[in-house]
């Protein structure tokens, strides 16, 4: 089977196709889905998952995982609220929150690469730790009085048109991450690490250092998303983004990234995120209950991997049959 055909058989391509189909059907079939206001809502809803998914893709490609992202987001949000109450200017708070995220990421990175602890275990620990610290920082209160010119920007659209401001940010970051992963030596090294860390080490790739920086980036992005989240809901709270981590992992896997590392593409992941968000948005417009959404999400997740496998196995058995027949005649 040819290069092209094999590419087409890949999960990510299937997901991308599926996403397009869903978008088309929804905008034709679902009333109010196609409207520009709904588009804004859609973008705002998928923003956090999509942004966090970018570094998460890198990390999973190297065969590790980061379950602490949502808690990092929450902690960043708490810090933002606390600093705001201290009377700092929002212009200085935002970079501080991003740096804070980076630091939290660095701790993950150190535990994983420095001490060689399994990332799944470590980030389950920091998941609890960071969320706890978020509570310590902001307590049970919520800080709300952020300046409208910022909250407004996040929820607003370019010149009041139909393109949300945050879309620029999303596209920019997505492009950067995509190019780095798919067209740079660094990107190549990530796949190598994910597929066989020892061989990568023997090829002169700095395995530990690379992973460490991935966690730092992941933390920083989570911090940024914490800021955006806070501004969008104009409410800084300790429990912001709780439970987001599994949604992100789900989206990344749905996008065709192998949980064992070494496989996956960013376009696939983007498609995965959009697919989930669009489906939920459309189904909600159709008054489908939240529980049904759960079932759909789960089913999609499993099917996205199951179907291609079934397809290939059918193909191969069919081939063996043909050979046997050829041999008997």
């Amino acid at each position, binding site marked *: 089977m040819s290069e092209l055909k094999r590419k087409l058989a890949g999960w990510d391509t299937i997901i991308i196709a599926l996403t397009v189909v869903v978008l088309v059907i929804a905008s034709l079939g679902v009333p109010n889905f196609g409207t520009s206001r709904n588009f804004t809502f859609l973008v705002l809803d998928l923003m956090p998952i999509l942004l966090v998914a970018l570094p998460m893709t890198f990390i999973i490609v*190297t*065969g*590790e*995982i980061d*379950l602490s992202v949502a808690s990092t987001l929450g902690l960043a949000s708490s810090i933002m609220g606390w600093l705001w109450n201290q009377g700092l200017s929002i212009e200085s708070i935002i970079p501080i929150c991003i740096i804070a995220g980076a630091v939290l990421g660095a701790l993950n990175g150190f*535990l994983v*690469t420095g*001490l*060689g*602890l*399994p990332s*799944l*275990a*470590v980030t*389950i*620990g*920091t*998941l*609890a*730790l*960071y*969320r*706890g*610290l978020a*509570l*310590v920082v902001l307590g*049970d209160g919520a800080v709300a009085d952020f300046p409208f010119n910022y909250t407004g920007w996040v929820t607003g659209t370019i010149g009041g048109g139909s393109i949300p401001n945050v879309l620029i940010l999303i596209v920019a970051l997505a492009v950067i991450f995509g190019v780095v992963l798919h067209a740079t030596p660094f990107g190549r090294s990530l796949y190598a*690490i*994910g597929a066989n*860390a*020892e061989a990568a*080490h023997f090829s002169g790739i700095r*395995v*530990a250092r690379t992973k460490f920086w991935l966690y730092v980036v992941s933390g920083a992005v989570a911090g940024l998303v914490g800021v955006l989240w806070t501004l969008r809901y104009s409410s800084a709270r300790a429990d912001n983004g709780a439970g987001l981590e*599994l949604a992100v*992992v*789900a989206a990344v*896997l749905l996008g065709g990234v*192998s*949980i*064992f*590392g070494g496989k996956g593409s960013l376009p696939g992941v983007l498609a995965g995120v959009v697919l989930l968000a669009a489906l939920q948005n459309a189904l909600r417009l159709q008054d489908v*209950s*939240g*529980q*049904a*959404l*759960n*079932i759909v*999400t*789960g*089913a*999609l*997740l*499993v099917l996205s*991997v*199951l179907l291609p*496998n*079934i397809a290939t*196995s059918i193909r191969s058995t069919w081939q063996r049959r043909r050979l046997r027949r050829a041999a008997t005649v």
Partner: protein
Amino acid sequence: MTTAVASKPKRPQFSLGGVLKTRELGIVVALAVLVAYTAISNPRFLSGQSVRDILLNTAIIAVMAAGQAVVVITRNIDLSVGSVLGLSAFTVATMMSANPGLPMVVALLVGLAVGGAAGLLNGVLVRYGRVPALVVTLGTMYIFRGLTYSWAGGQQVNADELPRHFLQFANASFLKIPWLVLIALIVVGGVSLVMRNYRVGRELYAMGSSPQAAELAGIKVSRNLLGAFIVSGALAGLAGVLFAARFGTVDAAAGTGYELNVVAAVVVGGVAVFGGSGTVWGAGLGALLLTVIGSALTVLDINQFWQQAIVGALIILAICADRLVAVRIARSLRKKDSHV
């Protein structure tokens, strides 16, 4: 996760038995210290009622941890246990409230069956669908929860709708030990024994240690893998029954978020997430440790907001300690070699 040799602890199974013990010994020590400290600052922590409560709270997580450990040892994971608990708990609760006449045994069996079925589905998808366990069980986590919700809707089974003997089961005890605790002990003990001393157990370790090699060695990989997931599911189902009996009130949200606690317990208990090593009773101890931490913090009257942070920190400490022991073992090995 990656099997990066660099980050993979070098660790014997049951050879160097002494060293192996120290791995769980670490947890035991941690437990002792924590209990001692808490008891000193508040003696009531060791009062019958309090100890009883802790054990009762541990029982449910411990039962699930035993099943989870088996799956993790085969280099897989089961994130659906929380949802399975919810499904089984709600099924059993509605069944018992519908016909209060049913004996406890039936409830337990139904719970096991529901869970087992769920586990079977996971296993089939992982083995025959060749879908990574984390993906499958993350998916079924959503699916089972969704099913329970759409079935239960708003309704909730309240204590007053459940038959006495069912609720009694949580507190009633057999020679001073509450049934719940007894069941947990039997489960953890039994599974540990099988995993340590029986062929199928060792085969599960082998599968986790090197899946390809397991295939070549002619191990019945499919059978064992399905078995592992069924056990994990069934025990989650059993936990569901215990949950219903203990908490009386059951709604569709029962057991939400348990999956991470259970995995945490298993990991703290020293089971390597890359599979192939660790022990079931270690996982049981992990569950106990986490519960004790939880109630100790409440008893010590630690600021509500600090509690979660402390739990997280302690989890990480536990993992670090485990790693230290592992490194020590690796060292001792190297030494042995060099004098060959």
